[in-house]
């Protein structure tokens, strides 16, 4: 009996599902049992970056669109949530020492007398939640429309996204009466009266975050396994052939860029909830590139690899900076150089090279290619 594409599809799905279950077990059982609430909250913070890395796996790994501006969407998602929380924290009673009570403190410091119009709708949690996903997706749509319809791609696209990240940072820093400026939006307290600063709240938010992440991984897996996902891979490898086959390449690119933006924004919103503030330092060029690094360390072709990569890089960052406050940046630099030079496919590449073959030997019936995405040799190297 020959293996039909269908049976191979399910065989691979099983391998991925097993990986996701393992990750879920790690996130939901092992880490909460093994770590105290302080460290767990930090893992929760790292996991919010994993949303961005997931988006990059689809956008960059699958479709070959390198965006160096994912911080824009992470930031906007985070700011939408922060605006809601800040308004809740700025009740007239809580802010009665200000010259204008009832508006956020930084507005008062900047001599604003009333709430700007675009802040008004953020009194509503429903609006804020919708805005978290909708605003970044809309922005990505506009940028994508302008770029991809004109067939701007590759390095040019990466540079333009980077420019957008710089523009948005300057805008946020410059308009400090409306945005909190370089300080960001700080001192967020409650979500609908529920104090998000307590240990219990942090625990709940961690689980919400982990569950959302697993959900997003499943969603990404679904997209990758669909016909759409295969078209994305095809246009990464031979864009012209896809175009000549009658597909509108730009629409697919716009979709995957918007999708990655929405994922990043969910991460940003969860970040705000868990860390308790949002600032332009997550929007600019440096954090955006860092997010690409998380994805690269994990392996840009692997969804699970991206999550592990994000965890590893951030954990290393925390540990190294705690142990060597003066030298840790050098160690991080060495880590990144090492990854690029020695393991171009990141953690996932290591897994496939060394661990998967051994696992395969243990269960020979599942077929030699189980669990390994199809990587053409030349894309793995570039």
């Amino acid at each position: 009996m020959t293996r039909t594409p269908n049976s191979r599809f399910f065989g691979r799905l099983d391998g991925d599902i097993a990986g996701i279950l393992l990750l879920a077990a790690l996130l939901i059982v092992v880490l909460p049992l093994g770590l105290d609430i302080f460290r767990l909250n930090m893992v929760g913070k790292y996991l919010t970056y994993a949303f961005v890395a997931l988006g990059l796996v689809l956008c960059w790994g699958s479709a070959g669109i390198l965006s160096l501006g994912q911080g824009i969407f992470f930031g906007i998602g985070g700011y939408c949530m922060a605006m809601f929380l800040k308004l809740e924290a700025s009740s007239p009673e809580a802010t009665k020492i200000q010259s204008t009570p009832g508006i956020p403190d930084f507005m008062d410091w900047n001599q604003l007398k009333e709430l700007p119009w675009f802040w008004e709708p953020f009194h509503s949690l429903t609006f804020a939640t919708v805005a978290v996903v909708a605003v970044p997706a809309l922005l990505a749509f506009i940028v994508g429309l302008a770029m991809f319809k004109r067939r701007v791609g590759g390095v040019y696209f990466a540079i333009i996204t980077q420019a957008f990240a710089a523009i948005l940072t300057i805008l946020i820093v410059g308009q400090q009466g409306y945005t909190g400026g370089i300080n960001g939006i700080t001192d967020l307290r409650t979500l609908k009266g529920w104090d998000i600063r307590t240990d219990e709240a942090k625990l709940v938010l961690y689980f919400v975050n982990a569950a959302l992440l697993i959900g997003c991984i499943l969603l990404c897996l679904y997209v990758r396994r669909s016909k759409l996902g295969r078209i994305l891979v095809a246009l990464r490898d031979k864009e012209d052939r896809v175009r000549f086959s009658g597909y509108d390449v730009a629409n697919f690119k716009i979709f995957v860029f918007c999708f990655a933006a929405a994922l990043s924004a969910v991460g940003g919103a969860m970040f705000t909830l868990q860390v308790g503030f949002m600032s332009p330092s997550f929007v600019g060029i440096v954090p955006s590139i860092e997010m690409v690094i998380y994805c690269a360390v994990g392996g840009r072709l692997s969804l699970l690899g991206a999550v592990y990569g994000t965890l590893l890089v951030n954990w290393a960052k925390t540990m190294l900076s705690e142990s060597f406050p003066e030298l840790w940046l050098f160690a991080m630099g060495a880590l990144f150089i090492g990854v690029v030079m020695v393991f171009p496919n990141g953690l996932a590449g290591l897994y496939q090279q060394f661990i998967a073959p051994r696992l395969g030997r243990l269960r020979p019936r599942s077929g030699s290619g189980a669990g390994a995405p199809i990587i053409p040799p030349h894309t793995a190297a570039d």
Partner: protein
Amino acid sequence: MSSDKINADKLTGGAHSPLRRKLLLGMAALPAIGLLPRGALAQALPTDAVNTTKLAVTDSTVKVGILHSTTGTMAISETGSVQAEKLAIAQINEMGGVLGRKIEVIQEDGASDWPTFAEKARKLLVEDKVAAVFGCWTSASRKAVLPVFEQYNGMLYYPTFYEGLEQSKNVIYTGQEATQQILAGLDWVTKEKGAKTFFLIGSDYIWPRTSNKIARKHIEMHGQKVVGEEYFPLGHTQFNSVINKIKLTKPDVIYASVVGGSNVAFYKQLKAAGIDLNKQTLMTISVTEDEMLGIGGENIAGAYACMKYFQSLKNPNNEKFVAAFKKMWGGESVIGDVTQAGYLGPWLWKLTAEKAKSFDIDKIAAASAGIEFTGAPEGYVRVHENHHLWSKTRVGRARTDGQFDVVFETADLIEPNPFPKGYQ
């Protein structure tokens, strides 16, 4: 055995302490405790008396945190504060420590990144249970850690002159708040130079904006005039357009609160545009000896700086302080206003702990008001009920060698007033 275990827990800071290192330390200490005579165990009690909230205090040591940026763009400014804090701690330890306990320092890097500051502050308070933290520099980093200190009830000694509009049980502000720094300087320049018109220029963030708001109110209250007010993004290096405006409006005083690297470009371009600071009065509230290193004395000589401390201050405390600082950190090092304020932190904390006879945060916070430090390099200082310091304001004139000549100091200590009525 069980009593041994309890003692071990006390040493390791609680049985549920997550750090394996600490647990191992505790286990290593177990046999030693068995050897202790009964009397030694009784001596453990004083620690319980001075530490009822499980801070990292033992019979011989107390842990504190230092939280500054040692990497990133702010490292150049914050290094001085770290050095001053370490010097103060070393001196206190030489004198026998605080309440008979040597201070142990846990240093963390905020990496010029506000969320990292918040994360590290949480680590210091939750994991390390430090009795006090000396740190933060920018307003943004302070705003990021403030909720953390309030939530976990920590104590922060913050060294930078800042915009005010803040007061917390959990922070002691050892730098000046805006009105302390600004008002006396404006009065001096009005009297001394007969200034009628001012041009305000600053970097675009909360501190320069708030400072200039206070300056503008004060100027207008006295019937003088602000002829221009301009802000530039952090890191901005093109000041030619504003310099042209300055030439057109011919203000009596340029009032500058440009920070960081922008200063270098600003003063060089002023000089290149032919504005001689010996003829055109310029008063800055943001250039200390540290910034002068980058700007170059020849580019800024003649400008006036208004703050509470200059390295060239002549008094016995300061001479001792400067000598000790140079001995510890090298003869080339310079000491700016914030560095001196950083030095005050550990001393004020020591004096407060000794007055409160306790390391408990609540008792330290309550005992802080009225603490006097006669050994301060800037001269006598006292902590106000609002947790800011009473301090003098001084005006210094920049010299080509990177130092200031102190040309004026207020006769009395100036009361800190973080929420100034009439200036908001």
